């Protein structure tokens, strides 16, 4: 399990702010994994994200990206080539008047050969499902489509890591699904490391790992099943337990038995249906055998 991003005791405060925004973060992200970060507004999530590609550097401690110290000014470009960022507002991230020009912007600036740019732009647009729209004007696209163009623009740099800072906050449910599905396909299909910052717990349930940040500290770190089953932890962090986890917990409290957790709607429904059938089977076999006894 090779780490690709490492935080070592990272402290950070914004100039003029007395309070630290990051308060001693230790973190190691495995290459090729999908990590989701939850936390309330003001918990330091965006500050954490900005340390991953040297937009911000620690006041104390250090951040290593693929072994490179982000505080080393001569390597800033090397860090940024490895880590692509996608932000909340798609309108602030699109610079060109045509979709494919926008996607080509970063590789052009990196001095990539025109032929290679063409290949990358096409590949990136296909990957996010926007190839058909390559000649469109970005401002006429939906929010989800714009955000996928922004992601394509990042992919065209061929980074190893993609950090998405609340990419779905301004989108409707459909746009949200498009963007999250795209993020997962980059990780599962292309082996990219993905860090997704979000308020929506249902976007995290397929992640390899969920982190919770609170007042600049990491307060939880585990598999989604572990994190979302922990009612006390979620309450403490101002998060609601997802409906699936809550239902299984309360049915358990009423005496039903389920193996493990099931966070997805379909899995959860299956578990419950099976448990109900199992109870019925055990009862009918008990009724059949009881007259003899």
């Amino acid at each position, binding site marked *: 399990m090779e780490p690709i991003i490492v935080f070592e005791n990272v402290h950070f405060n914004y100039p003029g702010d007395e309070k630290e925004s990051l308060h001693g973060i230790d973190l190691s992200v495995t290459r090729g994994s999908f990590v989701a970060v939850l936390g*309330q507004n003001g918990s330091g999530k965006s500050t954490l994200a900005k340390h991953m590609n040297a937009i911000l550097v620690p006041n104390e401690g250090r951040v290593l990206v693929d072994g490179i110290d982000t505080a080393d000014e001569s390597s800033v470009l090397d860090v940024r080539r490895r880590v692509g960022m996608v932000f909340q507002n798609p309108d602030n991230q699109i610079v060109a008047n045509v979709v494919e020009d926008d996607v080509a912007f970063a590789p052009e600036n990196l001095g990539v050969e025109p032929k290679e740019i063409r290949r990358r732009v096409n590949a990136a647009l296909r990957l996010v499902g926007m190839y058909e729209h390559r000649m469109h004007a970005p401002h006429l696209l939906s929010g989800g489509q714009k955000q996928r163009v922004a992601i394509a623009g990042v992919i065209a740099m061929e980074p190893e890591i993609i950090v998405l800072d609340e990419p779905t906050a301004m989108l409707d449910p459909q746009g949200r699904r498009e963007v999250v599905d795209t993020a997962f396909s980059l990780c599962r299909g292309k082996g990219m490391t993905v860090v997704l910052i979000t308020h929506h717990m249902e976007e995290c349930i397929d992640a390899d790992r969920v982190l919770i940040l609170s007042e600049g500290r990491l307060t939880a770190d585990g598999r989604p099943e572990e994190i979302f089953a922990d009612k006390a932890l979620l309450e403490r962090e101002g998060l609601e337990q997802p409906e699936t986890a809550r239902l299984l917990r309360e049915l358990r409290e009423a005496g039903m038995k389920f193996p493990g957790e099931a966070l997805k*709607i379909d899995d959860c429904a299956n578990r419950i249906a099976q448990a109900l059938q199992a109870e019925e089977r055990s009862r009918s076999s008990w009724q059949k055998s009881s007259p003899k006894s």
Partner: protein
Amino acid sequence: MAEIITEKLSHVYSAGTPFESTALHDVSISIPQGQFAAVIGHTGSGKSTFIQHLNALLQPTEGRVLLDGQDINKDKYTRRDVKRKVGLVFQYPEYQLFEETVYKDIAFGPSNMKLGKEEIDERVREAAAFTGVSEELFERSPLELSGGQKRRIAIAGVIAMRPEVLILDEPTAGLDPAGCAQIFENIRCYREKSGATVLIVSHSMDDVARLAERIIVFDRGAVVMDGTPAAVFSRAKELMEIGLSVPKAAELAVALRDCGVGLPEGIFTHERLLAALLQVREGRKC
């Protein structure tokens, strides 16, 4: 307090150009005084176009909008009257804060209504209380506060005009769950105390299910469903087919029925789902 009626409301953008598109088609709806209604629909369904007609920001291409029986686009009403009676909070209203202090920002609306100083002061404090904006923040610059605080200040600025109809376009977008819950609570509280009609556009189906008395569903410029949360969310499958999300409990109920669990219709809250499942379990025991 006010009732809003739309009669065969249609709106066509860029009429007569190659970009002509019909955003609203024949929408006839009546929202009685004091009702808490939610408008849902995916991007491009016409819901924002619809609410912008309700305070005369947009003019109908065809049809009428009536406020207490009077056409809001006719002489009897001036634009100013309409905008005072019908307060509209846009998406991301915090981007519209501009004054030097929180107090001045909230006071901006009432100040333009030529009210006395004391009246303005009373309204600012009242609106701040409704939205949970602490008076300690009054002399701070709104621009240096957190996103959730800014949002509540912007909403206070509209509430300070004491609108009879309060319309909010996705008031919780981008906030964390605690921030969302707080905004919904503020709105509920304002409506309860003022008796205002409230119309809210939202994607947070779980909150809508909990708070609204009525849900109006837009799809491709028309109203496709209109009823109580129970009635609308019992058609969860149809809603999902037109690309909308439904409360998680309703989605689970659909999935459970697909797995052969015999649940009754009209389940859209966690409490009902849990109760129905326990009942199924009891039923099978007998």
